């Protein structure tokens, strides 16, 4: 269970989060939607401690994240960054197996490599990309390597920042299924950010919409279309006219 209570974050004069409250039950899949630049990435980065909120509390399984042992805390997480954030000096398989090659989860090199190749296959990448450098891959391939890295050490909690942007429809569907499968079969708690409504329906148990620094609406995905909230309605139907301004 992840909870955010009244979380605020301002960059300079840009008040990004202005009192976010959110609950993500264990072994469920939460999808966060919201306009570009509303602070969705900042939201998940604050749970990981990559961004320090100005005020408010964030807990994971009842424990305040500022008082936990950082190493043990982070070992439970996997994160796919919006820009993939692959280490460009390391070949693909060492990116994927990064965690398995050092620290507390260290394995022998051949075993780590086998796991990496298996995870690459799960995100639709053939074994021959394993020895290439990230710079030699397309944007969508890099994204999938980032995804493979996020799931490589079988973490309990995984954050996916726009896992399907830049992918073709078939590959998107493979990734959606993968995320769903990880949640249902492995009991992972997932928070996914996406703009793709097909993905929302395929991945989510619950949906939360971030708007103007607050969670505008949250509830089970089945109730999303009947939310009765003009903001949610405009967003999921992708209409240019409505309460959400198009210049922001």
């Amino acid at each position, binding site marked *: 269970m992840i909870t955010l209570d009244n979380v605020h974050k301002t960059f300079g004069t840009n008040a990004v989060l202005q009192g976010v409250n959110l609950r993500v039950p264990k072994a469920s899949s939460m999808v966060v939607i919201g306009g570009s630049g509303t602070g969705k990435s900042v939201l998940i980065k604050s749970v990981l*401690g990559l961004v320090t909120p100005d005020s408010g509390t964030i807990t994971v399984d009842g424990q305040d994240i500022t008082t936990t042992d950082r190493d043990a805390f*982070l*070992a439970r*997480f996997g994160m796919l*960054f919006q820009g993939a954030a*692959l*280490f*460009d000096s390391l070949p693909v398989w060492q990116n994927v197996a*990064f965690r398995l090659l050092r*620290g507390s989860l260290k394995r022998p090199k051949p075993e780590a490599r086998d796991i990496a190749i298996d995870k690459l296959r799960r995100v639709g990448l053939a074994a021959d990309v394993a020895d290439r450098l990230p710079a030699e891959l397309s944007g969508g391939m890099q994204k999938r390597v980032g995804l493979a890295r996020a799931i490589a050490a079988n973490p309990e909690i995984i954050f996916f920042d726009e896992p399907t942007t830049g992918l073709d429809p078939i590959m998107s569907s493979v990734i959606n299924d993968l995320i769903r499968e990880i949640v249902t079969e492995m009991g992972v708690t997932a928070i996914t950010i996406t703009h793709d409504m097909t993905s929302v329906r395929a991945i989510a148990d619950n949906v939360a919409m971030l708007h103007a620094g607050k969670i505008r609406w949250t509830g089970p995905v089945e109730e999303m279309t009947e939310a009765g909230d003009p903001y949610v309605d405009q967003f999921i139907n992708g209409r240019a006219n409505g309460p959400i301004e198009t210049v922001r």
Partner: protein
Amino acid sequence: MIALLASIGAATLGVLAAIGRLAIFTGQTISHLFRPPFYAREFGTAVLQIGYFSLPVVGLTALFTGGALALQIYAGGARFSAEAVVPQIVAIGMVRELGPVLVGLMIAARVTSSIAAEIATMKVTEQIDALVTLSTHPMKYLTLPRVLAATLVMPFLVAVGDIIGIYGGFLVGTERLGFNAAAYLQNTADFLTRIDIISSLVKGAVFGFIAALMGCYYGMNSDRGAMGVGRATKSSVQAAAILILIANFLLTGVFFSA
């Protein structure tokens, strides 16, 4: 008038804050030396990058500087019939000052800039954040190996620079200025003292520490975007070069003020 004072005050506070941040950064870097794990592979790569691959540039710099030094001293010395001191002055000039300072500045240009650009790019593309989420401390994984490698490797580079610099003087002295080879070497060896050599190597270690630390510090604190990377790189080389020259002055004071 008040505005002037206020801006002086603000600038002073800014400088103090920067010194404070740098001191904290230095302290953190050193503290990671005593806390496992130690990333040996990264250290090895840094030794190669900073030490081995800098040898050509260090060698060329030292060779030509030593040669030029010999020509100058010969020409200058001739004015008061002291041409004979070429070997001694080349030796002392290279070992005490020019060797460590020039090698330090070359390393600032070559190593500080590349460290800063690399780490700043990692910062801008969220690779540093990714390291954290993969339970790897960026200071331990990126900063410590580079700073440690530079500190340990620089004395060797400086020693190589000193020797090649003296050799450059020797070449010019024997080939052009008519010195006897054996006598030149004998004079050099007799004149250099142990403290000359120790000071040279200590300076090297300090300059290496400064060069790598500045690269890491400005890289880690880079602003966002390509402009951020550019600014970080520029500032790191500037800071490293100036700090190396200040440290050189202070160390010369420590070693040689009687």
